[in-house]
């Protein structure tokens, strides 16, 4: 019975992901370093990037990260934040010289500064910092960022009460400064991971990261409180701004994210203001669930080694469908807000995937392209590639991988993209753009590791040509036969002749008899 229910659900998902016109803002990327700007592909063309997310972004990273954009980077002490680096990123780069004329911006909150935590002033090593000196909370592995980055602010109690002044004042200052410039705010990066927030050993299972069981007690209730305050502050200071949910990793939609959505707190009344000056908005004390703290659901829709089919890591770009199915099920199960809007503000390969993907750039071109195709086919609202200037060996800046990204976005932006259907080992995704009927296809049984393999596949005589990921056009063989492999191609079919000589007969009657009007061309 359980299997039957799951099958029914998946069928329902397939129906949801029906054909739709794909806006260009679906396609974006995050940028790691200040230097990789302007964003260009391997052909020196401006990157087809229409949205971006600010997280894991620095001005420099060698030999150590400096000029970061996270909370701890911007507010190193309990004083006014320093905006120089974020100003440069947003005002000078993203809005001052965007690759495609405009850029939709998401800012992700995360990385609590040490001064705002209960571990401030505590010995290292010590109870708060049990690992070697300077190695970070939890032995250097638990907090992904700085020593206390995954700890809660000390002015929020475990049950979500407290004044939340540290975070709220920082968030208000940031939102007021970038009102009208930042479009979306994500409350905490991957809070379902103990690298960033989740309490290992708590009642709610975490995702990813390590298995440290130290005394990290951020709690879901604390997160709900900060998210609730953030939503009220943002909607007050920038009415057009929207809040994205904590980003959900593959495999955690029905566990951690479900618990977040249904957990509740008694949130106190609040007032939005900047530097102690009220902004004219306040909200009353009330019971608040996690599901009430955001406008749109947000995932990090990549594969996961614990979730099929990526049993050996995140090497399979098609496994984004697993994350999608899981989040759609959770949206339905807990009646989450705006169910047709799903953000995916981080996806792509990771360092651990490079071994499986190999060293052939063609494999990375295929990976990036297929990720984009799935974003369009599944109807995800926004997908941000992590990262254009990747920290995982194979970046897109000035490379053929970037060219494959741009070519693929050119296929998809403004097109109507239908559901990708797998027949045997061949995926086919119907695309219509500017009145031309096309088909994207690839063969999952082939590989580009270490070299690319191909097989002949026949699409029918209606197809006359195809384009590869370099943008090169080819004629198809007899009866639409092409050499198909791991890399997607875009097939174009011959135009279908329209009917002609329409002739209309209106059947009606006036008082004196039947009247037939005949008009034809």
């Amino acid at each position, binding site marked *: 019975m359980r299997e039957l229910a799951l099958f029914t659900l998946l069928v329902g998902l397939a129906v949801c992901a029906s054909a739709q016109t794909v806006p260009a803002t679906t396609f974006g990327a995050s940028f790691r370093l200040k230097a990789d700007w302007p964003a260009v592909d391997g052909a020196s063309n401006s990157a087809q990037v229409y949205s971006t997310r600010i997280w894991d972004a620095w001005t420099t990273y060698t030999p150590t990260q400096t000029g970061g954009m996270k909370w701890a980077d911007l507010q190193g002490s309990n004083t006014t934040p320093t905006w120089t680096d974020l100003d440069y990123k947003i005002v000078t780069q993203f809005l001052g010289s965007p690759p495609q004329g405009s850029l939709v911006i998401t800012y992700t909150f995360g990385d609590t500064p040490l001064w705002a935590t209960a571990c401030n002033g505590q010995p290292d090593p010590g109870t708060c910092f049990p690992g070697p000196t300077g190695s970070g909370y939890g032995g250097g592995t638990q907090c992904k960022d700085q020593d206390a980055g995954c700890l809660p602010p000390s002015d929020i109690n475990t049950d979500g009460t407290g004044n939340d002044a540290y975070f709220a004042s920082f968030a208000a200052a940031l939102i007021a400064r970038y009102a009208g410039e930042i479009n979306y705010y994500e409350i905490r990066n991957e809070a379902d991971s103990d690298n960033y927030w989740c309490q290992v050993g708590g009642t709610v299972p975490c995702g990813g990261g390590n298995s440290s069981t130290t005394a990290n007690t951020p709690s879901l209730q604390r997160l709900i409180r900060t998210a609730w305050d953030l939503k009220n502050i943002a909607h007050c200071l920038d009415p057009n701004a929207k809040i994205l949910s904590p980003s959900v990793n593959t495999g955690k939609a029905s566990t951690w994210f479900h618990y977040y959505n249904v957990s509740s707190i008694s949130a106190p009344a609040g007032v939005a203001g900047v530097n102690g000056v009220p902004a004219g908005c306040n909200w009353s004390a009330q019971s608040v669930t996690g599901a009430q703290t955001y406008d749109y659901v947000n995932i990090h829709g990549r594969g996961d080694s614990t979730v099929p089919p990526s049993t050996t890591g995140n090497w399979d770009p098609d496994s984004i469908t697993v994350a999608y199915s899981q989040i759609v099920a959770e949206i339905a199960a807990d009646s989450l807000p705006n169910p047709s809007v799903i953000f995916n503000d981080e996806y792509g390969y990771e360092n651990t995937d490079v071994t499986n993907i190999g060293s052939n750039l063609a494999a990375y071109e295929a990976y990036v392209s297929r990720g984009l195709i799935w974003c369009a086919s599944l109807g995800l609202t926004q997908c941000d590639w992590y990262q254009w200037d990747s920290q995982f060996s194979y970046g897109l800046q000035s490379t053929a991988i970037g060219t494959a990204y741009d070519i693929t976005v050119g296929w998809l932006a403004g097109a109507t993209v239908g559901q990708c259907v797998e027949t045997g080992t061949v995926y086919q995704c119907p695309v219509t753009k500017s009145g031309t009927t096309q088909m994207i296809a690839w063969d999952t049984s082939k590989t580009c590791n270490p070299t690319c393999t191909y097989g002949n596949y026949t699409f029918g005589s209606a197809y006359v040509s195809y384009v590869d990921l370099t943008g090169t056009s080819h004629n198809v063989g007899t009866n639409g036969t092409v050499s198909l492999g791991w890399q997607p191609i875009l097939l174009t079919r011959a135009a279908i002749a329209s009917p002609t*000589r329409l002739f209309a007969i209106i059947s009606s009657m006036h008082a004196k008899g039947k009247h037939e009007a005949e008009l034809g061309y």
Partner: protein
Amino acid sequence: MKLNWVTKLALLFVLLGAAWAQGPSYPYSVTITFTASTGTVTGYNMYRAPYTTTCGTYAKLNTAPFTGTTYTDSNPAQGAYCYAATAVDGTAESGLSQPVTNIQIPPPPPSGLGVTLAQNKSADNATFAWKQSKGTKLSGNSLFCDGSLKKTIAPTTKLQLTVTKGLHTCDVTASAAQGMSGPSNSVTFTENK
């Protein structure tokens, strides 16, 4: 009685004439025929757009592609329209055909026509009353009796006429920019003076 072929043909014309006089009943319909696509297709879609001086935004009328080269748009609302067709091959679809434009659908006919007679010394006044179809923009109403137009007036729901002696059958129509509607129900009455 055995009928020869001339009698049969005459009877057929009589029957056809009766059918012609009665005509099809409201609602109206538009039947579009077209010449098939020259390529391999699995079906067709029919689109309709409002027409002013040009065709507006098209909307597909059929839920699934139809086969054959005829499509009937049943009961379109009063207005002017364009129709255009596409050919479909699987999930692929052609562009819109050249449209047929300015297809005008008249208003619905009035309903509930009734008549009352008021006696005078020499003749009776007949008062006709009817219901106008809602949501229509009309330019007038016309009263027909015994196969002739008796009077055309601005849109209304009541009309008084002096009627002559004899048996009369009357109906009323509504007119608009798109033309005259079909007839309402008819009323039959006898004037004795």
